[in-house]
C-alpha cells in the first residue's frame, strides 16, 4: 500500500499514466476531506447499489397488489414504509424506482453533453460565422423555458420514458455547448494545437483528439450538477402523468398517485418525494465537491 502511495505521489513520474493516476489520487485526497462531497458520494453509491440489487433488497414484489393491506402506515411489520392504495409495498417500489431514475439520468448524461460538446467545440474551434450561427441556435434553446419546452415536446412525442429522456436531453444540451465553447476558445490558439495542425491533422481529428479532452473536466462537473435538475424534471413529468406511465414505480408518479390520499395517508406521497430529494441532494453535494476539487478557478477561494 505504501509503495503504491509512493508511486502515486512520486514528484517525477516516469510515464504519462503514472502522472495521470497521481493527479487523480491527489484529487481524491482533496475530495475526501470535503465532508459534504463525501456524503454526496455515499448517497450516489447507495442509489447505484439500490438499483443494482433491487430484487434482493426489496422485501416484496413492487407490482404485487394486496387490497386487504392497502394504505398501511409506515412501521407496519413487513411494510417498513407502509403500503399504497393498491396495497403495494412502498419501500419495494422506491427501491425498484431507483432503476428508472438511474436509467433516465444515465441516458440524459450520455446524450445531452455529447450534443453540447459537439456544438460547442465546433463553434469555438472554427469561429466566424459557424460560431455565430451555432451560438444563436444555442441561445434560442437556452431562452426556452426548460420544463415548458419538455412539456410541449412530450405532448408531441407522447408520454413514456424514452420520450421524456429525449425531451429532457433536447432541453439540457445548451449549457454544455456554452461551457465547451468557452474551454475551446482558451485552447484554440495554444501552441500544441498549432503543432498538431502543422503535422497535417484534420479539423475533426484535432477537435476529437485534442480539444474535447480539454473540455471534459468542466463538462463532467456540469453533468454531475445537472443530474439533480434532470431527476427533478423527470419526476415533474412523471408527476404530471407525462413521463413514465403506471404501473411502473417511478417516484414522481408515486407522489401523484398518493396525492388524493394526502391528508389522511400522508406517507404515500411523502416517501417517494423524500427519495427524490435525497438522491438529487446527493448529486448536488457531489457536483459541488467535484467543482471545488477539479476546477482550479474556484479552488483558490
Amino acid at each position: 500500500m505504501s509503495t503504491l502511495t509512493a508511486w502515486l505521489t512520486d514528484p517525477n513520474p516516469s510515464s504519462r499514466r503514472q502522472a495521470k493516476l497521481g493527479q487523480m489520487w491527489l484529487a481524491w485526497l482533496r475530495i475526501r476531506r470535503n465532508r459534504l462531497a463525501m456524503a454526496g458520494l455515499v448517497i450516489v453509491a447507495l442509489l447505484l447499489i439500490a438499483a443494482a440489487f433491487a430484487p434482493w433488497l426489496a422485501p416484496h414484489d413492487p407490482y404485487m397488489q394486496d387490497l386487504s393491506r392497502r394504505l398501511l402506515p409506515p412501521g407496519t411489520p413487513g411494510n417498513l414504509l407502509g403500503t399504497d392504495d393498491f396495497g403495494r409495498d412502498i419501500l419495494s417500489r422506491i427501491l425498484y424506482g431507483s432503476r428508472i431514475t438511474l436509467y433516465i439520468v444515465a441516458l440524459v448524461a450520455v446524450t445531452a453533453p455529447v450534443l453540447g460538446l459537439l456544438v460547442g467545440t465546433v463553434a469555438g474551434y472554427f469561429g466566424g460565422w459557424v460560431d455565430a450561427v451555432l451560438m444563436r441556435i444555442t441561445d434560442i434553446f437556452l431562452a426556452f423555458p426548460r420544463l415548458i419546452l419538455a412539456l410541449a415536446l412530450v405532448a408531441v412525442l407522447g408520454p413514456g420514458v424514452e420520450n421524456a429522456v429525449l425531451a429532457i436531453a433536447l432541453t439540457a444540451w445548451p449549457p454544455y455547448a456554452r461551457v465547451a465553447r468557452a474551454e475551446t476558445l482558451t485552447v484554440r490558439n495554444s501552441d500544441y494545437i498549432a503543432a498538431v495542425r502543422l503535422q497535417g491533422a484534420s479539423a475533426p481529428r484535432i477537435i476529437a483528439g485534442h480539444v474535447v479532452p480539454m473540455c471534459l473536466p468542466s463538462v463532467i462537473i456540469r453533468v454531475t450538477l445537472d443530474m439533480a435538475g434532470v431527476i427533478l424534471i423527470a419526476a415533474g413529468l412523471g408527476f404530471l402523468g407525462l413521463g413514465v406511465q403506471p404501473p411502473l414505480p417511478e417516484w414522481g408518479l408515486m407522489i401523484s398517485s398518493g396525492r388524493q390520499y394526502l391528508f389522511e395517508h400522508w406517507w404515500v406521497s411523502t416517501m417517494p418525494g423524500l427519495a427524490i430529494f435525497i438522491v438529487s441532494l446527493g448529486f448536488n453535494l457531489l457536483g459541488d465537491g467535484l467543482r471545488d476539487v477539479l476546477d482550479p478557478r474556484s479552488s483558490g477561494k
Partner: protein
Amino acid sequence: MTDSSIPQRDRRLVRLSLQIASGIATLAITLLGLLLITFIIGRVVPIDPVLAIVGERATPEQMQAVRDSLGLDLPFWQQFGIYVWDALHLDLGNSIRTGRSVSEDVARYFPATLELATLGTIFGTLIGVPAGVLAATRPGSISDQIVRLVGLMGYSMPVFWLGLIGLLVFYGKLDWVAGPGRLDPAFSMQMEFQLTQYTGMVLIDSALNGAWDVFRNAFSHIILPAGLLGYVSMAYISRMTRSFMMNELSQEYITTARVKGMPEWRVIWVHAMKNVMVPLITVIALSYAYLLEGSVLTETIFAWPGLGSYITDALFAADMPAVLGGTVVVGVVFVTINMLSDIIYRLVDPRARA
C-alpha cells in the same frame, strides 16, 4: 483638451447605440427561432388540426374549407411567415378547449402567474441576499454551513412534493393558511362581480378597492405557494450573493476601507454591496424568469389559475394552439426579462458601459 474629449464622447455614443442595435437584432433572431421551434412542434404533432376543429362528421367540403382558412396547403415557409405575422399581431390562434383566442386566454391567466412569481422573487431576495452576505462574511462558520446546506436543499427539492407537504402541514394539520386556489369562493364572487379589476392581480386589485377582507383572504392563499417559490429562488440568490460578496471582500479597496477605520457594516453594505449589486441584478432577473416558467408544477398543486395550469390543462385536452401559444408567451417573457437585465447591467456598471 476639449477638442479631444468631444469626439471621444461621440464615439462612446456610437458604440452604445451599436450595442443597443445588436441587442435588438439578437432579440429579434431569438424570438424568430422561438417561433420556428413552436411552429415545427405544431406541425409534427400527431393531432390533425382540421379534425380538431370540424369534428369527425364533417363533409370533405367543410374540411377543405377549414384547410384553406388555416392555410395548410401553402408551402412550409409561407405558412411559417403567416404564423410569424400573426404572432406579431398578437394572434396566436384559437384555443380548441376554451373557444377563445389564445392571447385573450393568456391575458386572463397571466396576471395570476405574475403575482405569484413576483411575490416569490421578493421573498427570495429579501431572505437570500442577507443570508448570502452573512455566509460570505463568516466563511466556514456554522452560519455559512447552514446557509450553504439550506441553499443546496432548495436546489434538490422537488417543488411539487414540497408544495404537497406544505399543504399537508400548514393547511391540513395546522390550518394556518388557506388551501388551494386564489380566493375562497365567496370572496372570489365578490372580486368578480363587485370590485373593479385593474390589473388582474388579486392582491393589488383588492387593495386598490379597499376591500381588505378580500386582501387578507388572498394573502392567506398566496403565502404558501409564493413562500415555496421564494425558497427555490432564495437558494439560488443566497448562493450567488455569497460567491459575489466573497470575491468582493478580497479586493484591496475593502482592505483600504477597513484600515481607514470604517465600521464593518458600512464596508459590507455600502462599499462592497455597491459592486455586488451589479451581477446580482442579473441573478435576480434570471431567477424571476425561472419562477415564471417554473411555476407550472406549483400552480398544478395549488390549483392556481395561472399560465402554467393553462398550459398543462391544454396539454391534456390535446389543445395544441393553446400549448404552443402559451409556450411562446412564456418564452417571450423569459427573453425579455433577460434582455432587460442586460440593459440594467450596462446602465449600472460603468465598466460594461465603456
